[in-house]
């Protein structure tokens, strides 16, 4: 491997100076002349018919410039998933019926927030309440109120089934028959919010000539453009979605939201720009959170701990519309397929409609819920078999080069090394034995250690499926990178610049990035499918390598040397061994204009998760390839449990991860720390509490996101399985969301190690600990 100058280095983020000085403009900070304030009227009922909406008084209020209801829309439905099997099921503004508290019913645009708020109060909506259901198991019963008809392809006698994933391989019955030990368990997870600091916000400006400009705090502009154009009835080319800085997203800003649609439609109606910003209370009470899953697992193993068969049923409380509800039951299957070898599987996942707000992707998108269940149960099996948790994981961990049952390959999978190094680094085996052997002592504080693993895909085929990039040289030899990628805080622009810098040998601070504008930048998969570094990164690398080749060809001519003898270094080319025979890039730029009929040295590049697969895998049957690139990790948690108070403290979290090759170790560490913190919140602190479809704790006082007193000691070990070579594609893997998962199971396993209490549901509250200890009933 050649010496690398920019990739693999702790290069400081390009947007740092803007952010640290307050110059960075987020969508929330944007203003346009004449801009109106938009607000949304939401349903107070969990399930009701809309009998009438009277907006006349609101329209007459001085200062109100536009009011919209479903009658002002084209009545076109949308959804995150839009396939022949799963047609869209939601209107941008409710028509005739509402199905959750907070569903958008009307919207107003006014000259200031006070007038807008008053106008909402003047809209009279007559509802006829209908019976509602909030629990997915109750919603599946035949006598439950119907929210939507069960999907026609689902033949079981269940109500309210929005979609089903069924898959498997081998024969589970045979696998169970061959098993020496079997067990069945049921795990439940709970509702959490993403916790992005910038609330949801969009600014729309419709030009009289027919062009809609919209800035929105999102994770990628292209999916927004497609859905906005279609629901508004505008040609795709008439909608331009642009980025501003994004104050966090974590999966919560992917899909089309009503405030974006309403800002656009209000702007079209009022003829002025309209900004709609959600309040924090609205985000908590009416926006989309993650997905609580019920996971039922029956597992059979051999005496030596080898997994033989699993039968798994996942039930997703997916809320009033499909949202990503049918995606998470597909992904859940994938998180079973990885990271352990499993010869026989029968999998069923159900997305169940309930009268709760719809759900969406949330960092890890089902992986934390599934890995919590699977790796908790694996520890229970190890305990029964008298095996060490590390040993049973090493026995079943996928090895490099293994073909997965769906046809994917794990390539240079570093899972075994991750497990070994995490265990070694923490002295796992000794501590695990020692903690178990502690009998009854007077000390209420008990230590425990636990381990778990996970794997996550790096990019997949979901609209818009691919990334392109353009790299162009400027007269002075600097570069401009044009990419559709969206920097949501993870550092996309920085790592893409590092890759371009490495290929062309232009320093990162001499590369200008134009990003995430549907009009001027090429299409991009978006920062929501964990493919940024792999897919967009390879597109940027391809584009940069075209520039590199043009520079070398031209320099060879000018210097009368062979291209192989030329060296690129800091914006100049020289002949190896004769540094005096050199040309600066700016001179090559001039030469290219002169000798290449005006070519200012532009390169373009494209990449796709998979080269040769036409479509995304079937959400219903899982048939088709999923990803070409999987990251792996093992995480160890050390906890301290107070047996008197039931409080658990995460003392230390160790992450050994195979992200292929870290393009920027500083940013990788930041991703790991952030994920450990989020998992800590998941484990102990955070829960959106709902009763009868209403959110009881819609504020940060009552919803406990980790604060600085809850900081976890987070250590990481890089297991490097790939190389970066200039001019060649690479398999750098995801690092931004897979690491919220194993740590959750590791914490649960550590609690068991400390006090012998097995937890079957998140969060791990003092109440559950004390109940497990028999201290409360």
């Amino acid at each position, binding site marked *: 491997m050649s010496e690398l100058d920019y990739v693999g280095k702790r290069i400081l983020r390009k947007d740092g100076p803007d952010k640290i000085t307050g110059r960075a403009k987020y969508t929330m900070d944007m203003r346009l002349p004449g801009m109106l304030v938009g607000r949304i009227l939401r349903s107070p009922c969990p399930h009701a018919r809309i009998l009438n909406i009277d907006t006349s008084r609101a329209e007459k209020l001085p200062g109100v410039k536009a009011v919209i209801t479903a009658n002002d829309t084209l009545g076109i439905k949308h959804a995150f998933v839009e396939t022949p099997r799963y047609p869209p099921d939601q209107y941008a503004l409710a028509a005739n019926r509402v199905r959750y508290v907070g569903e958008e019913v009307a919207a107003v645009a006014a000259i200031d927030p006070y007038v807008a708020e008053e106008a909402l109060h003047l809209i009279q909506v007559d509802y006829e309440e209908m019976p509602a259901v909030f629990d997915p198991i109750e919603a599946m019963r035949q006598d439950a109120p119907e929210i939507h008809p069960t999907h026609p392809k689902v033949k079981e006698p269940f109500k309210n089934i929005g979609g089903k994933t069924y898959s498997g391989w081998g024969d589970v019955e045979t696998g169970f028959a061959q098993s020496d030990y079997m067990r069945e368990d049921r795990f439940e997870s709970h509702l959490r919010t993403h916790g992005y600091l910038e609330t949801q916000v969009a600014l729309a400006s419709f030009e009289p000539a027919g062009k809609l400009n919209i800035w929105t705090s999102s994770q990628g502009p292209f999916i927004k453009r497609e859905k906005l154009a279609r629901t508004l009835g505008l040609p795709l080319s008439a909608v331009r979605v642009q980025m501003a800085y994004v104050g966090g997203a974590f999966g919560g800003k992917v899909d089309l939201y009503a405030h974006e649609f309403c800002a656009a439609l209000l702007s079209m109606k009022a003829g002025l720009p309209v900004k709609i910003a959600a309040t924090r209370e609205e985000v908590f009470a009416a926006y989309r959170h993650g997905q609580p899953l019920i996971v039922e697992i029956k597992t059979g193993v051999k005496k030596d701990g080898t997994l033989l068969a699993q039968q798994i049923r996942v039930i997703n409380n997916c809320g009033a519309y499909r949202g990503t509800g049918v995606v998470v039951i597909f992904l859940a299957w994938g998180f079973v397929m990885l990271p352990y070898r499993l010869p026989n599987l029968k999998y069923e996942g159900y997305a169940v409609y309930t009268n709760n707000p719809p759900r969406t992707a949330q960092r890890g998108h089902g992986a934390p819920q599934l890995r919590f269940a699977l790796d908790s149960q694996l520890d229970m099996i190890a305990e029964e078999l008298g095996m060490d948790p590390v040993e049973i994981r090493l026995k079943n961990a996928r090895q490099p080069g293994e073909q997965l049952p769906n046809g994917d390959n794990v390539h240079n999978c570093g899972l075994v090394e991750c497990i070994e190094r995490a265990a070694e680094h923490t002295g796992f085996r000794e501590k695990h034995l020692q903690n178990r052997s502690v009998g009854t002592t007077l000390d209420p504080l008990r230590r425990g250690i636990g381990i778990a693993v996970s794997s996550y895909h790096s990019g997949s085929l979901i609209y818009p499926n691919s990334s392109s990039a353009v790299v162009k040289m400027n007269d002075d030899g600097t570069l401009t990178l044009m990419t559709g990628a969206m920097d949501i805080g993870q550092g996309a622009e920085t790592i893409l610049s590092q890759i371009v810098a490495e290929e062309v040998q232009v320093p990162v601070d001499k590369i200008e990035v134009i990003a995430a504008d549907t009009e001027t930048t090429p299409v991009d998969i978006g920062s929501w499918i964990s493919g940024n570094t792999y897919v967009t990164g390879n597109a940027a690398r391809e584009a940069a390598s075209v520039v590199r080749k043009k520079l070398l060809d031209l320099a060879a001519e000018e210097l009368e040397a062979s291209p192989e003898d030329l060296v690129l270094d800091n914006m100049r080319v020289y002949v190896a061994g004769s540094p005096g025979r050199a040309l600066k890039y700016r001179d090559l730029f001039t030469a290219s204009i002169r000798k290449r009929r005006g070519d200012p040295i532009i390169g373009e590049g494209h990449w796709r998760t998979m080269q040769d697969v036409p479509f995304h895998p079937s959400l219903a049957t899982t048939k088709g390839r999923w990803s070409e690139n999987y990251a792996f990790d093992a995480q160890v948690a050390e906890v301290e449990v107070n047996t008197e108070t039931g409080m658990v403290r995460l003392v230390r979290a160790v992450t050994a991860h195979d992200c292929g090759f870290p393009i920027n170790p500083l940013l990788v560490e930041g991703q790991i720390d952030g994920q450990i913190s989020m998992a800590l919140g998941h484990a102990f602190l955070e829960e959106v509490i709902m009763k009868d479809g209403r959110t009881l704790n819609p*504020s940060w006082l009552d919803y406990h996101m980790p604060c600085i007193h809850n900081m976890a000691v987070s250590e990481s070990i890089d297991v490097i399985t790939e190389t970066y070579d200039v001019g060649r594609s690479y398999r750098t893997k995801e690092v931004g969301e897979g690491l919220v998962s194993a740590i959750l199971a590791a914490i649960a396993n550590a609690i068991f190690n400390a006090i012998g209490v097995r937890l079957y549901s998140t969060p791990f509250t003092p109440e559950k600990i004390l109940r497990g200890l028999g201290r409360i009933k």
Partner: protein
Amino acid sequence: MKKKQGRQLIELAVNGEAYELAEEPQVTLLEVLRNDLELTGTKESCGTGECGACTVLIDGEPVLSCLTLALDCRDLDILTIEGLAKGGDLTHVQEIFLERGAVQCGFCTPGVVLATTALLKATSRPTDYEIKKALEGHLCRCTGYNKIVEAIDKVLTDGYLVNE
């Protein structure tokens, strides 16, 4: 519901500049900074004093601008994130925050940087506990706080005093 009332003239001193403004009595300092002075570096994330994103320094003390009425800020010295780097030169705290990766999405950053600056001015060698007390009202979802604390530790190791 808030109703419009009569505007009052006030003078505000922000980042060393004097501004004369006419504001309604219910308007917050945050609204004036962001909407009237276009100093949008001060962020709103909750508007109810729970997250710390809107923190500014008033006479050197961290204050939640979303809970502070603009009319109460007469004759006080207000410093926002835009006023920290003089002539484009970053302060030591700002530089080390970047160097240590303490910034990701950046939405909490202005508040955290200002609170840190105030702490280090008031206490030259804060203990770990004092650092956490000073930042306990600031929510950050991206970093897990590890790199923020690491950055502050580095500032302290450098022996840098945050004095003008």
